[in-house]
């Protein structure tokens, strides 16, 4: 069953119930266990080892200090938070059973799931939850998740099964924040030991369906079934062997020769090399990933909105997508493909999305650049799609007189520029979890509340982002984010180009694997081997 099938099975209205944990004293119902991690399979067999090929090796498995997406993909199977980020944007109770929200929407009283044990064997209590979230939200502990938890004022254990979370202002995205990316729960006091951080690469202390058995750099990471997992009968696989394969050619050969049972491709177009191979199944699904062009307003003439709009009007997104990933994705406007249905404004309702060379030239002339100007585009070495996209973009911008020089930099250099808000004109590639607040706020809200990496400094956008964060009514919230996207599309701090599809290639003996649009491997918890 593909992801789109899975989405079809879920109640679309449930999407809008997000945040609709809403109004005052709302109550989340019993855990939606049927949908956690994907659809429940019929006729599933238990046992077996699944070999999954990974093209990007996780640099480490520490869910508290390591932000790399390659880490998160795996560790969501090991560590769990209070909520689960369902593919359609619902924060579903995971280690929580439900919560009550105070009338002023500032206090969440969370009831914990019973019978949850850590991989160490000890029972999980509210103290562990309070400890983990207090650890992560204290920036002095060096967690990349600290920013997401900035609105949390306190986390207290009321009794063994109840946690009280107090926030400084209403925040509809809080449940989504308490997920698994950074919201994992570990035993209280875990980080007191000096070697605690490094030990996370050798033994897991989470509550997830799988436990870490082995992590060998440049070779493999092996997870084994957690026999004490709180949901009976899950997971189905005895063992998952993640094999780190450093290049696409070896991975494709491995898939053909059954050395690898399943893999997601980082270059979607590589799928053409295995299409039609007997015994292999290919599945495509929308993602929360976005390939974008950022326009840092610290760089002249990008500080002029007319220039940014002209660039947007000169870009043919579809052509760039076809050149860089063979068209295996979706052109986007202001929202990633996986969230377009739930949160996105239709592309034809947004300004500056359609190619219009004449309008672009006119805008440039108005801005005093009738003869165009020179501009440097930064792309990142190792991100294959950027090379073809850069050449295509140079051709496109050349038509309005913008002479593009392509500069390829190493990721470390790029990250440094980004963090210091000196990004200039650059390609970007990032993913999000299914909530517009988590997608937009930190990136685009004015400092100091947001990081405003593109130096956009847009008052109206910041006001709308504040409103969207506070609003709990799903319909009103959607309306606010629609208005925000209009502002964004008009002012163009970034041009979202497209979301590359997740392309999963699997042996047909692998059943019921559903790819989560984040790219994380939740689906392995419900996959089984025929």
């Amino acid at each position: 069953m593909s992801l789109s099938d899975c989405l079809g099975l879920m109640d679309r209205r449930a999407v809008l119930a997000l945040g609709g944990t809403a109004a005052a004293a709302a109550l989340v119902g019993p855990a939606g266990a049927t949908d956690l991690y994907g659809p429940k399979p019929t006729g599933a067999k238990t046992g077996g080892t699944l070999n999954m090929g990974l093209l990007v090796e996780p640099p480490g498995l520490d869910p508290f200090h390591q932000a790399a997406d390659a880490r998160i993909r795996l560790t969501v199977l090991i560590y769990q938070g209070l909520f689960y980020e369902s593919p359609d944007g619902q924060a579903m109770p995971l280690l929580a059973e439900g919560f009550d929200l105070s009338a002023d929407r500032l206090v969440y009283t969370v009831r914990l799931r019973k019978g949850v044990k850590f991989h160490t064997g000890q029972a999980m209590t509210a103290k562990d939850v309070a400890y983990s979230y207090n650890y992560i939200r204290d920036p002095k502990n060096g967690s990349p998740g600290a920013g997401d938890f900035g609105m949390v004022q306190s986390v207290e254990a009321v009794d063994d099964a109840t946690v009280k979370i107090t926030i400084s202002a209403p925040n509809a995205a809080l449940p989504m924040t308490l997920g698994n990316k950074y919201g994992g729960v570990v035993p209280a006091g875990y980080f007191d030991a000096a070697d605690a951080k490094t030990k996370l690469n050798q033994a897991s202390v989470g509550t997830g369906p799988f436990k870490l058995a082995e992590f060998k750099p440049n070779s493999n990471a092996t997870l084994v079934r957690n026999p004490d997992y709180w949901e009976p009968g899950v997971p189905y696989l005895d063992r998952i062997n993640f094999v780190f394969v450093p290049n696409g050619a070896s991975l494709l050969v491995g898939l053909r020769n059954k050395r690898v049972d399943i893999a997601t491709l980082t270059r979607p177009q590589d799928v053409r090399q295995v299409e039609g191979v007997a015994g292999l199944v290919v599945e495509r699904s929308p993602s929360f990933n976005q390939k974008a062009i950022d326009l840092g307003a610290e760089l002249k003439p990008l500080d002029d909105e007319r220039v940014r709009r002209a660039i947007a009007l000169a870009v043919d997104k579809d052509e760039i997508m076809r050149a860089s990933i063979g068209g295996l994705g979706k052109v986007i406007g202001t929202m990633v493909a996986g969230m377009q249905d739930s949160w996105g404004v239709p592309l034809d309702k947004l300004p500056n999305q359609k190619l219009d060379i004449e309008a672009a030239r006119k805008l440039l002339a108005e801005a005093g650049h009738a003869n165009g100007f020179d501009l440097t585009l930064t792309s990142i070495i190792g991100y294959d799609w950027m090379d073809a996209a850069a050449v295509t973009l140079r051709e496109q911008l050349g038509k309005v007189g913008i002479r593009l020089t392509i500069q390829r930099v190493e990721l470390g250099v790029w990250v440094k520029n980004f963090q210091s808000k000196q990004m200039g004109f650059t390609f970007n590639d990032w993913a999000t979890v299914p909530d517009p607040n988590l997608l937009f706020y930190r990136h685009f809200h004015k400092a100091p509340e947001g990081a405003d990496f593109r130096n956009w400094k847009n008052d109206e956008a910041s006001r709308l982002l504040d409103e969207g964060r506070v609003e709990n009514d799903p319909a009103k919230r959607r309306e606010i984010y629609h208005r925000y996207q209009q502002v964004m599309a008009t002012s163009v701090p970034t041009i979202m180009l497209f979301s590359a599809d997740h392309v999963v290639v699997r042996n047909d003996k692998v059943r019921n694997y559903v790819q989560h649009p984040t790219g994380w491997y939740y689906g392995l918890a419900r996959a089984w081997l025929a």
Partner: protein
Amino acid sequence: MGAYLAKRLAASIVTAVLASVVVFLLVRSVPGDVVGQMLGQTSDPVAAKALREFFGLDQPVWQQYLGWLARVVTADFGTSWTRGQPVLGMVWSALGVTLQLAFVTLVVATSIGVPLGVVAGIYEGRWLDRLIQTFNLLGLAAPVFWIGLMLLVGVSAAFDWSPPLMYVSPAESLAENLSIMALPILSLALLQAAAYSQFVRQSVVSAFGQDYVRTAIAKGVPTRIVFFKHVLRNIAIPLITFMGLILIQILGGAVIIESLFALPGLGRLLLSSIETRDYPVLQAGLLVVVVIAMLVNLAVDLLYRIIDPRVRLS
């Protein structure tokens, strides 16, 4: 000999320390750091500062270096910043894979390249020589990643077989290890065999051109005797030097081959450590590479003396 060895070893230690300074400075001069990599695009400045302090990156570079050196002399290479495992163990296990790759490749390349070079040299200008020279030319012109890729894809297409993607040491299973290592070794060995063959051919041709060899042939000494008694001895020393160079070249080529065939060797470890800015692993790994290069040079010099006692060691 003993005094020479002691002198060379002392010089090697000084070189290794100097190399460690260069390595340390080079590693630190790469833009970005482990904290940027760990925290990603949207990190919190306070969190970044905290992690920087945790890793000691807030200290001046010279202080970081001295601290590192003090630990290294007690054989404490620290812990990997990203993988949390002891650096020494990581480098040691990766080195085992790379050395197996390098030495077996050396043996295979020598076994193919030297006979080919000798035959080409003896039959200089004839069709056999031209055939071997064509092989040499192709081997030298083709990049190692291309040879590896062609072997991988070609073998897979022809036999529906590819090497396992998870490394197994020879101690665990020799057969499994060989099935993993065969294609990577062959990829590297084909290139190096061509280099060998070309080098040996030139040496043989040049040795056959020497007056005393021509005299021996003119006197009716059989070519076989002339070859083993005069020519082979003449090319032995340059061949040893060449072997040293080849070994170091193989270690360089291993970076690419290890990445192509998913071997957990030193080259791949260094590459991934550069990407994550895992300084302790990088420093230890690069230092090991420097030490290996020095040991190979030393071994070559000592072999000179063993093969030709006229060579004076000083």
